[in-house]
């Protein structure tokens, strides 16, 4: 791309495109039918892994959580509560503690 820089610099000031210009050619769309990949990754085994697998990966794959930084227990609890209160995750009250405990054990800030 930068091979084009020098001539482009010469043209500066005259070549800037108006923010909305008429498109040149007619355009047609084609229908789309395809499949999106899924992930079969589960949370690593440990106390509570069955609880987190049962509650969390219906809405999002486990990689989202595994890619998170280490967070405090308080921060993990806030995340789980956000999923329940804001995003309506159907997590039973008795499972919340086990999920937070798992996350804190596995990805807790020291």
């Amino acid at each position, binding site marked *: *791309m*930068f091979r*084009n*820089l020098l001539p*482009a*610099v010469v*043209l*500066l000031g005259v*070549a*800037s*495109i108006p*923010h*909305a*210009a*008429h*498109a040149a050619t*007619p*355009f*047609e*769309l*084609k*229908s*789309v*039918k*395809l*499949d*999106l*990949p*899924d*992930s*079969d*990754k589960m949370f*690593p*085994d440990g106390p509570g892994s069955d609880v987190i697998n049962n509650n969390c990966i*219906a*809405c*999002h*794959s486990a*990689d*989202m959580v*595994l*890619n*998170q*930084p*280490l*967070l405090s227990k308080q*921060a993990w609890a806030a*995340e789980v509560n956000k999923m329940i209160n*804001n*995003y*309506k*995750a*159907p997590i039973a009250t008795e499972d919340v503690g086990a999920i937070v405990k798992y996350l804190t054990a*596995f990805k807790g800030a020291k």
Partner: protein
Amino acid sequence: MAENGAFYRTMTRRQLLAAASAAGVALSKPAWAQSMIDLPLPGGPGARQVTTSFPQKGPMILQRTRPPLLETPFEVFDKGVFTPNDQFYVRWHWAVIPTDIDIGKFSLTVRGHVNQTLSLSLNDILHGLPSVQLAAVNQCSGNSRGFFQPRVPGGEWANGAMCNALWTGVRLKDVLDKAGVKPGAVQVRFKGLDEPVVADAPHFMKSLDIDHARDGEVMIAYAMNGEQLPLVNGFPLRLVVPGWYATYWVKMLNDIEVLDQPDTNYWTKVAYTIPDTPHASTKPGETGVKMIPINRMVPRSFVTNIASGTKVKAAAPMTLRGIAFGGDCGVASVDFSIDRGKSWHQAQLGKDEGKYGFRQWQTQLTLPGAGEYSLLVRCTNSNGVAQPDVPNWNPAGFMRNVMESIDAIAV
């Protein structure tokens, strides 16, 4: 200043095994078939798969499989100002995404506080309204979130949740005028075809003020870079809100509702809000800060041709090259410093493809003697706003735009 390499180390299998074993991560087998990348996120984890398994997409950094979060590999930004569609980053909120879209059946509804409810076919949109084109950067509110310190939860992006395309479509204003906006309209709300897995969860919707929606710049795009949108980038229609963060660029747009009351839906009122402070910055733990919806983007610039830690020849001319964007306006200048900000020099700007797009920049420089240098780059936009030299911080990880630095070792 942020010390983020332009390119991230590709991990060897041995490094990855060590990292995985240290973290106790059980990596599934197919991962070995794909290449891995190590994003330099402070405190980690930085290992990500580079996936080619998404349809209509090339190699992408896998942040999350479902709903997809796919990051653009940074080397793509050195190739030109327009990001190829197959490597344009991807971000979805909800996992129920239609994968079978018949262009003959799709329709866009315009309803609410209007004289006439409309149901527009794709044919009506492509052939019944004036077509416009515009180059614009689409950047996630949380682009670069992974560099926040202290770290915050969310999509742990490096710098690749931003892309630039030449968008083709119709003006939102023309569509609203066709329906006839009634007096007293205050906002316009946009919704796409994606749906939450849990039925009572909030459907993703975003709103713009009526004057913004009718400014003639906000558009409904049916093409990017001359082709129809990849499905995961919002096929068949996507809202384009030039200069504003991507949260407003609703994908698979099929519903426009003109409101006579301010929108109070979760995604506008609660999510995607920022502290109403300079650089949207607060201190960790600070409470009682007034929050407002995220809005206009701020300037950024990056080196794209040299990775941090690269060895270069001392006392010999070298080329430094990269991209910049002004945020909500054009790029006025890109400056660089080889002496940790004591003195600054202006880089040459490349062709202006439109004020809302990426702008390439380039310069020749000579590192005078052997040693380690920190090369700084700073964009000043045409409103006179320059990148700050200290990083902002907020709990959501939004609006990072600290000036970037890369290390060069002159030998």
